């Protein structure tokens, strides 16, 4: 009896101990409110044994390249790198960050469904990195600012989200976005790639006669780059700035109407099965429509080639890419320049070393390694390093297309308001399926835009 009792007690104690053992002492990674040191910092060499945590999203460029770049960085500076690369990076680093433990460097672009980067921007939770621009690139004698292609920082609402002249996000991996199509099909049919939207509609009618739809899109998320370029075409830079800052009455202007009309008309030319597949589970089926010659154009980025590399395709298929057709004869044509971002959470422990890591991203060594994986760093002269299809795609700006840069201004989250994607682009699904009219779409944008303006940061 006594033995039984003792055993039970012992087991219980063991269980209790293991329970408490789970609550291991995790010291939070630094003071979350540490202000970012300002001013030039090029001299501050950290101790050689320092280790920084780098978290990067895995995309079609693969994981190996990150290890290679991290190794090169360690070799150059002596700072060790602990790397986390994952396709669902938000799920991997998110919980720890909620507990106050931040990686030192995060490479994760805005515009993803989980919107992690946007949340950090909205919360003013990102360390300022303006001084990185004047830092010398490790192993070289030029500054970061001199290496980055002009226009990517300072002028960009993405890298300077608060429009206060301070940089918070470093531009990474840029990619021209445009309309992708099957070059082989155009040659076979003797069709010209349209240069104006009027030609586009003509082509749409011609293709419809052969049971080919003019347009499809993977998900509505791909409309951001498309719509940005369209806004530039409709009203140039000033209009784009006003529109992306939700200026009063901006959606009533003829420029805005032209952009809305184009999207609404395009919706009627879109392959009708598109919205049924425009979700994260089935979006590759929409991309497949172009490979199968069931739709002519889709908005996309240069990564599409790698993403669909294994997919079956129509005979004679060859990737082509064009800027958006002009709204008027002889008007400007734009291609949106998408780029990813690298940033330092304000709560990071090793901010100085993290800044060095970011500076190293623009070194020739890193840019070469990235280029070999198909990713183009926004440093001068990078296009010459690219090969194959990429060289043609990145040459789009040499063929007369103008570069569209920027994005909707960040606004404080408001309950029930929705994100930019939910307000502006998700309704395209409803436009295509016919459950929403163009006017309903515009009205909902106007209503949301008023709230966004009131909460702009």
């Amino acid at each position, binding site marked *: 009896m006594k033995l039984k009792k003792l055993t039970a007690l012992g087991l*219980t104690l063991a269980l209790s101990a293991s329970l408490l053992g789970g609550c291991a002492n995790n010291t939070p990674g630094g003071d979350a409110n540490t202000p970012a040191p300002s001013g030039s910092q090029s001299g501050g060499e950290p101790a050689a044994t320092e280790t920084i945590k780098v978290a990067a999203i895995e995309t079609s460029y693969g994981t190996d390249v990150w290890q290679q770049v991290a190794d090169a960085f360690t070799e150059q500076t002596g700072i060790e790198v602990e790397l986390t690369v994952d396709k669902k990076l938000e799920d991997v680093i*998110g919980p720890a960050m909620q507990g106050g433990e931040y990686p030192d460097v995060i490479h994760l672009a805005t515009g993803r469904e989980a919107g992690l980067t946007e949340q950090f921007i909205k*919360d003013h939770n990102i360390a300022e990195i303006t001084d990185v621009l004047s830092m010398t690139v490790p192993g070289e004698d030029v500054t970061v600012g001199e290496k980055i292609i002009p226009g990517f920082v300072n002028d960009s609402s993405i890298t300077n989200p608060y429009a206060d002249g301070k940089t918070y996000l470093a531009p990474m991996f840029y990619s021209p976005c445009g309309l992708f199509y099957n070059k082989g099909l155009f040659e076979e049919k003797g069709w010209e790639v349209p240069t104006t939207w009027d030609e586009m509609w003509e082509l749409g009618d011609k293709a419809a006669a052969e049971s080919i739809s003019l347009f499809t899109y993977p998900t509505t998320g791909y409309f951001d780059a498309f719509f940005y370029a369209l806004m530039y075409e409709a009203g140039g830079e000033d209009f784009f700035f006003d529109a992306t800052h939700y200026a009063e009455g901006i959606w009533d202007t003829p420029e805005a109407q032209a952009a809305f009309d184009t999207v609404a008309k395009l919706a009627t030319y879109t392959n009708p099965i598109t919205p049924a597949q425009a979700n994260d*589970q089935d979006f590759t089926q929409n991309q497949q429509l172009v490979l199968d010659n069931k739709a002519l154009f889709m908005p996309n980025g240069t990564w599409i080639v790698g993403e669909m590399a294994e997919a079956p395709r129509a005979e004679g298929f060859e990737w082509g890419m064009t800027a958006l057709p002009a709204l008027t004869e002889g008007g400007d044509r734009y291609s949106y320049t998408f780029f990813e971002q690298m940033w330092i959470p304000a709560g990071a422990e090793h901010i100085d070393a993290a800044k060095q890591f970011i500076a190293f991203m623009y070194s020739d060594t890193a840019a070469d390694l990235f280029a070999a994986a198909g990713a183009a760093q926004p440093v001068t002269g990078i296009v010459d390093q690219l090969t194959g299809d990429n060289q043609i795609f990145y040459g789009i700006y040499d063929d007369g297309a103008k570069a569209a840069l920027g994005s909707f201004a960040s606004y404080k989250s408001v309950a029930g308001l929705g994100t930019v994607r939910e307000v502006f682009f998700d309704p395209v699904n409803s436009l295509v*399926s016919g459950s929403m009219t163009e006017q309903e779409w515009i009205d909902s944008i106007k209503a949301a835009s008023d709230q966004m303006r009131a909460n702009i940061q």
Partner: protein
Amino acid sequence: MKRNKGRSRFIALCVAPAVILFVIFMIIPTINVFRMSLFERGAYSPTETFVGFANFKALINDSLFIRSIQNTILLIVVVTMVTFAFALVFAGILTRENVKGKNLFRVIFYIPNILSVVVISGIFSAIYKPENGMLNSLLSMITGQTVTVLWKDEPLVMVSIIIAMVWQAIGYYMVMYMASMASVPQSLYESASLDGAGRVKQFFQITIPLIWTNIRTTLTFFIISTINMAFLFVKAMTSGGPNGASEVALSYMYGQKDAGLYGYSMAIGVVVFLFSFALSALVNRATKRKPLEF
């Protein structure tokens, strides 16, 4: 007296681990949900501001939230009714009738329950594919013309989710009912058939009343699990789209967290919590019968 005290201490010590676990992982988080619903903060931001009931007030005017609740209720009502009807009838047939390969059917019906929701959504992605999908191909074969029903597009997307959820749940509940039906004494059926009751009458007059306690319990389970499963299915199959048409309460809550409204999403959590509590109580009350014994 002294012995009694030692005994209580011993019991307390034995119960302690479970109580501690329960408090840490159930009670505290639940209280926290209620607390955080009164604050406004981002998921990753270290600061929070007290806003009182502002989040709840905003909920009432949020048309997207109302739609997500409507979808949730639609799923609870339709999926529950269809699943229970099918599960009971199949269980009745498999226990009462002399069906060949009874066990094989049981296994086949149960399989969807073992599959993960992600696998199921993959399977249904192939079934619902507009071109060359299983369902559309079948319909084309029957009608003799090319059918392109857009199962995951706006008017039909909820129906598609309902079908997948019913398919997944039937087997589990069928097996549960088969177990309790098997314990209904054969003699009751024999005397009923002597009195001239047919199969259908026997099912409604004998089988259903005698397993009523079981039905009641599973009904409560099922309603709560439907609220949770709806999130998984929507997340994996449609991510709430197209244009929010298939958003359910929990997926909307999750989305609001990603939009940087942690407090607001917790307010949704509170509403869902209270809603499922109230619904379970209501169902429990409405289905109360005097238990029959055999």
